[in-house]
């Protein structure tokens, strides 16, 4: 994949994640300050389409952003060629998406 395409996708997903991270941090602080238990949190998230979409989007953005980043690190540290790098990036990205969506499903599924 071309360097400029990777660059644009990584920057766009970074931009997208800025507000998502802010909301995510607020949620963490809120849950901690209120002393919410796991059961309290699941009560709020189960069946919530909004939280499901929010975190699914977060997973997608983080997976794309992280996979491109890992590709860059592997290029400099392991000296892999473009084909191998692209393969590594896709595998890493798909693994992140599967793990992330599985976690989202676990907190929103009723």
């Amino acid at each position, binding site marked *: 994949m071309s*360097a400029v395409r990777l660059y*644009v996708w990584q920057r766009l997903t970074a931009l997208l994640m800025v507000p998502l991270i802010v909301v995510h941090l607020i949620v963490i602080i809120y849950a901690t300050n209120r002393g919410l238990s796991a059961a309290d949190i699941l009560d709020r998230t189960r069946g919530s389409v909004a939280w499901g979409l929010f975190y699914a989007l977060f997973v997608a953005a983080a997976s794309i952003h992280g996979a491109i980043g890992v590709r860059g690190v592997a290029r400099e540290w392991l000296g892999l060629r473009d084909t191998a790098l692209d393969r590594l990036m896709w595998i890493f990205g798909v693994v992140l998406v599967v793990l992330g969506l599985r976690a989202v499903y676990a907190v929103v599924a009723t």
Partner: protein
Amino acid sequence: MSTTAEAMIDVRVWRGGEEGEYQAFSVPRRDSQTVLDIVTWIQRHADPTLAYRFACRVGVCGSCAMTVNGRPRWTCRTHVSKVIEDGRLEIGPLANLPVIRDLAADMTPFFDKWQKAEGTFVPSRTRHEPLETISPDSAERQAADAAIECINCGVCYAACDTVRWSPEYFGPAALNRAWTLVNDVRDTGNLKRLAAAASSGGCHNCHSHQSCEQLCPKGLNPTASIAGLKRRTMQAYIRGEIS
């Protein structure tokens, strides 16, 4: 020039090619002495087989760059007093380039990358047409002028961590050259140039460590030029001009 015969400097100089070792010399300390003076003294008075490269001696030609106490410098304009550490100098060939012998690095990969980065002017007019009038005050010309005084010394290339990690990377000087041409309104080679800048050896490798900017003897800022290329390649990609 006053001379203090007793004052000596411990100088260690790289001898050999890729494999080799540092050789110690004791060189008389003089006022206003440059690192190139030191190397020249060694060749003339201690070991005539020492290989090194220089031409103008006044900071114009860019041929005398070497690694001095771990950092790349133009040796003809680097005063010993500015770089000496504990009375010692260690002088080696430029990093990130093959070594021919002793202090002479092989600049071939450096200039090959200028070609790969499309650092060649592509004129919009022939010699039979009148010269185009360019206003020095125009934004494009000022952007080109800010990066144009490069003397091809290779200091930025030797200073660049990313070049060390990614041998494919064009490096700061080649991309800085490309940026001057991107801003040159007389040039017509931008599409090919931006495609080169967006290729796997291009501007997106840069981590913005800014060693090039810190060590450039001409005070240029190749990191800013590379950031400019990142912007322009992104615009070209979004417009569908490059893929």
